[in-house]
C-alpha cells in the first residue's frame, strides 16, 4: 500500500508535468496547429457566441460533439480534460445540493443542463484552440492583433518556466517531506496521509515564489543585454517576428467549413 502510494506520488507529479508540456509544445503534427493563429483566434471568438444562439439540447450536443472532435485531433491533455470534467460534474452536483433545500433538485439540474452544455462547449473549444496553438503561435497571433509584446512575451516565458517551476516545486515538497513527521496512523481511507500531503503541498508554494522572485533579477538584466526593450519600439524586429504568419486557403476553408457544420447541425437536429 505505502509502496504503491509512494510510487503514485512521485509518478503523478511527473506524469502531470509531462502531460502539460506535451500539450504546450508537442502539437506540431495536429491539424489546428497548421492554421494561422489569427484565424484560430477569430474562430474562437465566433464560437464564444455560437452556443448562446441555440436552446435545443440536441443542437448543443451536436456542437459539443463537433468541438470535442476538434479537441481530439488537437491531442488535448488528458489531465486538462479530466480537470474540466470534474469541474462540470462538481458544478452540477453543487447545484443539486443547493436546490435540494429549496425544491426539486432534479428539475433544477434538468433546467441547468443547456446552460452547462453551453459553458462546456466553450471550454472544450478553448482547450482545442489553445492547446493546439502552442505558446509561440498564440503570442504571435495576439501580437499581430496589436497586443503589446510585454504581454505576449509573458505567455511564452510563462510556459518556458513551467518545467523549471515544476521541478523546483517537486524538490520543495520533497524537502518538506524529508523534514516533517508523517501522521502516525494513516486513518480511514488514508485520509490523514492525504491531508498531510495536501498541507505540505500548499506550504511548498511560498518558498518557491521567494526563490523565483530572487532569480528574476538576472533574467531581467539578461533580457536587456539581448535587446528586449530595444525590440519593443523596433518595427523591423516586429515584422521579422511575425513574418511567417500567413492566411492560406486552408485557413479560409476551416473557418467556412466550421460555419457550415454549425448550420447543418442547427437545421437537421
Amino acid at each position, binding site marked *: 500500500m505505502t509502496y504503491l502510494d509512494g510510487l503514485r506520488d512521485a509518478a503523478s507529479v511527473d506524469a502531470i508535468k509531462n502531460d502539460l508540456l506535451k500539450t504546450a509544445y508537442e502539437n506540431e503534427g495536429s491539424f489546428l496547429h497548421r492554421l494561422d493563429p489569427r484565424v484560430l483566434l477569430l474562430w474562437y471568438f465566433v464560437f464564444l457566441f455560437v452556443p448562446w444562439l441555440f436552446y435545443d439540447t440536441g443542437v448543443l450536443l451536436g456542437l459539443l460533439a463537433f468541438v470535442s472532435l476538434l479537441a481530439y485531433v488537437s491531442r488535448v491533455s488528458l489531465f486538462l480534460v479530466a480537470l474540466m470534467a470534474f469541474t462540470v460534474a462538481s458544478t452540477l452536483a453543487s447545484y443539486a445540493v443547493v436546490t435540494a433545500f429549496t425544491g426539486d433538485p432534479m428539475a433544477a439540474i434538468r433546467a441547468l443542463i443547456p446552460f452547462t452544455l453551453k459553458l462546456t462547449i466553450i471550454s472544450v473549444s478553448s482547450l482545442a484552440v489553445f492547446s493546439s496553438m502552442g505558446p509561440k503561435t498564440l503570442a504571435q497571433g495576439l501580437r499581430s492583433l496589436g497586443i503589446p509584446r510585454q504581454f505576449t512575451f509573458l505567455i511564452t516565458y510563462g*510556459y518556458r518556466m513551467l518545467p523549471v517551476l515544476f521541478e523546483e516545486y517537486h524538490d520543495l515538497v520533497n524537502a518538506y517531506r524529508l523534514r516533517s513527521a508523517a501522521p502516525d496512523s494513516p486513518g480511514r481511507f488514508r485520509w490523514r496521509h492525504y491531508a498531510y500531503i495536501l498541507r505540505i503541498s500548499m506550504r511548498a508554494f511560498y518558498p518557491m515564489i521567494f526563490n523565483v522572485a530572487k532569480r528574476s533579477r538576472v533574467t531581467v538584466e539578461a533580457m536587456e543585454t539581448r535587446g528586449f526593450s*530595444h525590440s519593443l519600439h523596433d518595427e523591423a524586429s516586429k515584422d521579422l517576428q511575425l513574418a511567417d504568419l500567413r492566411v492560406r486557403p486552408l485557413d479560409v476553408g476551416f473557418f467556412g467549413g466550421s460555419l457550415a457544420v454549425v448550420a447543418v447541425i442547427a437545421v437537421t437536429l
Partner: protein
Amino acid sequence: MDSTHDADIVVDDLSFRYPGTDTNVLDGADVSIAPGEFVAVVGGNGSGKTTLCKSFNGIIPHFYEGTFEGSVTVAGLDTATSSVAELSQHVGYVFQEFDNQLVNPTVFEEVAFAPLNYGHEDYRERVHQTLDLLDLDGLEDRFIWELSGGQKHLVALAAALSLDPEILVVDEPAAQLDPVNARATYEHLTELNADHGKTVVTIEHHTEFIAEYCESVVLVEDGAVSWKRPVEEALNRLDDLRAQDVHPPQVTRVAEQVYDDGRRLPVTVADGVTQFTDRAAAGGVRTDGAIEASPATADGQSPVIEIDDVSHSYETLRDGSRQALDGLSLDLYPDERVVLVGSNGAGKSTLLRLVTGIESADEGHVTVDGVDAGSTLPETLADDVVYVHQNPEEMFIEDEVRADVAHYLRDRGYPDVEERVDDVIEYLNLGDLQHRDGRLLSVGQQRRASLAIGLATDPSIVLLDEPTGSLDLASREEVGRTIDRAGQRVETVVIATHDLELAAAWATRIVVLDGGRVIADGPPDAVFSDTETLERANLRPPQVVRLSERLGLSSAPLTVDGLASRLASDAPVEAER
C-alpha cells in the same frame, strides 16, 4: 593575439555605490583592456569584480540606481550616455547564474532571441553560424530544460555571441560547471579569442584555468584594480592572491614549498614538469608508498546501505526515456567516507534520492539499515538518513536559518529543541547568521546552513549532493572543513561530486559512476592511479596527480603537501640552475 576589431575597454577612475550603503563597491577603479586580449578578473567575494564587469555593458549604472563617478568607455561609447541595448551589440555577457538568463523554450529560439530583437533579417544564418562555432549544431530543436548544465552554458554563450559582439564577458564559468565542461567552455573561448579576434574577459577563481588559458590577470581589491599583469607574473604574486582568497594553482604551491630561491614558479602542469624533472629523476622511481589494500569494509561488518541491481529511468519530452541507473549494485559500510564521482548525468543524484525514499527504483532494491527504501515513506527513512540538496535554496522552507534548523525537531515534537538547535548552530559557527533568511546568504554560507539543517536531525547517514558546487575556492575550503566536522558526528557520509580535489583530500573510498554503472571502486590512491578509467568517466584528476604522473612518480601523492615532500626528499642536493 591579433585582433580584427578596435573595440577596447577603458575604465577611468570608476566609483560606484549601491543606494543605502555607506561604502563604495567600486572605488577609483582604473583598467584598460585592449582589443583581442584574454583577461581573467580575480578578487575575493565582495571585492567588486562582478560590478566592474557589469559596467562594461552599462548594466551599471543603467540597471542599478546608485552613485556613479568616473567613466567607462567601450568601443568608443561612453557607457553612462549609451543604452544597454546599444552597448550589448559590442559586449556579450554570460551571467554566473546562466540558468536564469535562458528565457526561450528551444535552443534555436534562445539563440535567435537577440538577432530578432534587433531586427536582423539574417537571424537564421546567425543562429546556425553561432551554433556551429560552439559545436552545438543538431541541438536546435531541443528544449532548454532538457539539456545538461554544460550544454546550457554553451547555449547561453551562443546567445551572447549571436549579435557578433567584439567583447565577451563570462562570469565564473568554472564555478558552475564540472571541470570537464568548464574546460570545454574555455577551449571554445580560446578559439573565439585566437581565431575570431574576440576580446574575452572571464571572472574566475580557478587559477588552474587562468594559467592555462588566459593572457593576463586583473586583480580587484576593495573596489579598485590593484594591478594587471601577464598571467605568469600575476600567478607568482602569491601573497597578493592569497590576501584576496585566490588560491594559486597546485603546481605553483608545490613549487613554492620545494624551492626557496625566489625563482619564477611554474603555473601550469607543463611548466611544472620541466622544472621538477631533475628532482623526480634524482630520487629515481619510488614504489615504497605502494597502493594499499581496499578499505576496512570487508571485516565482517554488515552494510548500512545495500543497493542491489537497481535500474531507474526518467521520461523526457523529445528524447524518449533516459536511463539514469543501469543495474547498479553497491554496498556501503559504517564509518566509511564514500565519494561518488562521475560527470553530470552519471547517476549520482538519482542514487542518493533512491536512498532517501523520495523516489523508488524502477527495478532492484535499495535497503537502508535493513529497511527496504522503496516501500518505506521518506518521512520514516529520514529518522536515519539526511539528504542535503545540491541547491541549498531548496532546503530553505522557513524565513530564517534558525527556524529551518529547528523545523524537523519541532515537527516531530522533540522535547529539547532549543538546546539542540543551539548546539548545531554553534558547532557549525552559524551564530551570526541564524536570524537571516537562508535565501539571502552567500552561496558558501548557504551550504553551511544547509549542512546544519541536515545535522540537526541527528542522522546516522548523511548524503551530500555536490556540496562544493558553485563555490569559490575559499568557500570550498570552508565547506570542506564543515564536512570534516560533520563526519565526526555521523556514522556514514556519502558525497556525490565531480570535485576530485575534494575526493582526494577527504574520501576513504571512491566509487566512480559512468552511465548509471559502477566502473571503479576503491581507496583514493588506487582509483586516482587508474587515469584511463577516470577519463572514461569524463573526469580529470587533480593537478598534483597529473603532475606526478607526468613526472613518472608511482603511487601518486594526492595532495600538494604530499607531492612537495616527495619532491623535496627526492632531491639529493639542492638542484640549482
